[in-house]
């Protein structure tokens, strides 16, 4: 029974490994330099979502529209503070693909903890792979139940 269970699960583990290692570089666009102005105001960023390609050189002009704000970019550990009328320029290479949240890092009022924007670095292979893993998990569990559940009629 244990052998049968392992043989049932193994293809899905291999498939999951394949999805995780699958090269997705062919989805990537050529890197370029992007100049973006990001305006922070209570309690949102404009634009709320930034799309860049992996490898892009991003020159970010951060400005505050009302009070002092900050920026912390998840995954990149990029941090800055900006005062109204004094824009800051930040530069980084978007070398990690996926979705990364940027947050206000200076307490700016009641909704400050939820002042969040999103940087999406495409191809978003993390999401593609994990969504694939979800489908493989579902298919794997169903197959396991079909073949190996106690009293299974098949296999």
């Amino acid at each position, binding site marked *: 029974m244990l052998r049968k269970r392992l043989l049932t699960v193994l293809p899905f583990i291999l498939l999951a490994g394949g999805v995780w290692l699958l090269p997705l570089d062919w989805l990537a666009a050529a890197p370029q330099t992007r100049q973006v102005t990001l305006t922070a105001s209570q309690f949102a960023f404009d634009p709320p979502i930034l799309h860049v390609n992996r490898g892009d050189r991003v020159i970010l002009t951060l400005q505050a529209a009302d009070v002092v704000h900050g920026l912390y970019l998840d995954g990149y550990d990029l941090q800055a503070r900006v005062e109204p009328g004094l824009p800051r320029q930040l530069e980084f290479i978007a070398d990690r693909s996926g979705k990364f949240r940027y947050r206000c890092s200076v307490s700016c009022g009641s909704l400050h903890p939820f002042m969040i924007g999103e940087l999406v670095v495409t191809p978003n292979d993390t999401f593609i792979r994990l969504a694939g893993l979800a489908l493989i998990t579902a298919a794997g569990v169903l197959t396991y139940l079909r073949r190996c*559940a106690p009293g299974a009629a098949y296999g």
Partner: protein
Amino acid sequence: MAETRRDALVRWPWLRRTLTSRLWSAAAALITLAGFVLAILAGLWGTPAGARNFGIVFVWIVWWAALIIGLVPLFGRLWCAICPIPAPGEWLQRRGIVQQLPERRLGLGRRWPRRLRNIWLQNASFLLVALFSMLILTRPAVTGWLLLGFLVVSLALSLVFEGRAFCRYLCPVGGFIGVFSLLAPLELRVKERGVCQQHSPKDCLTGTNCSYGCPWGVYPGTLQRNMHCGLCAECLRSCPQDNITINLRLPAADLWVAGERRLDEAYKVFIMLGCALLYSVVLLGPWGWLKQLANLETWGGWAIYAAGFLAVNLLVVPGLFWLTSAGARRLAGFPLPTRRLFIDYAYGLVPLGLAAWIAFSLSLVLVNATYALPVLSDPFGWGWDLLGTAGVHWQPLATGWLPGLQAAVLLAGLAFSILAVYRIARQHAPRASTDQAWRASLPLTAYLTGFVLLLMGVYLG
């Protein structure tokens, strides 16, 4: 069945000694009550900056994370045993904190109305709190008034009704703790049912000279699920037959108890799923206009938000699940009404519901945990530095790992939920046919996978 359970009180005699004394729960409740009162005081008189206020940081980040990521999955309703909200009312009812004073109960001691003996009120109170969550999570004063309100209502109900009426029928937190405690690898149960059947009177319900009757109104002799057992251990103290114990068991054992599935609890599951999704979109999403609607900046805007919030929780999530259950019924050829399947399969969503809340809470706690250090030194935000940590700056933790962590939790919840719906489906199949159960699981798996992909889209997409 028996081989999947281990008697924790036999394995750890110190646990028995601890639980048979009321001292531990009273001491723990006094400690949590001190923290609770501090949260109220800080909320009402401390700084309005939430990130610097003990009321916000310790209630909605520290306590919440400890509850949803640790206490509930591992220990079920253990929090209810040490919760500060019902403690003052219970002590008043008993006219004592530790010492037993029989025949001197305070209050009217009325029974809770029969028509309200369900968790519909808890569903409503949770939704009410959830609708105002943007205000509650960000305004210390609102949190302060809310906590004070819980305390006052609980106290008032203790003086009118017997036992812990607030906890069992009204507490917005108690409802979902109850549902998620079905998954816990821990349970309080009787050792032998026959002993209870033959023994009269029922000391566990009525109390004795050295113990109180179950404040939750639960009869351990027929107890099969953690849903309403607050783990207060009064029955352990009162049982003259030494027939009560605490078992370690496989997680989720209560999900297979077929006879006690109910629509009100099924709706609690849908509400928890819907709220996990909506909170992730509204609170963690990039859409400022949505946060403004939730923030009650205009009544009209909030009304639109509230209508959408309620529609998702009460119509969309359960409505789609009804269609899924109907599909499962058709595919499997079950002769049962769709309503029955709709209720039963909802319990299969519980693992994914907990996973969704853990995924959401991970984001909340890892990003904001470092606020706890300065707040410990300066709970009111008045410029104190009691422990020398007031100057610690905010630093999000492990944000690079966070999406992967959330995805892993969701995948585990997905696998667990598919196994659960299949096992429930086997209870519907004549002679527990695996083929019919498997076919019923197909649309249910599609529903579960769709929900996971939706949440992954919010966190990672």
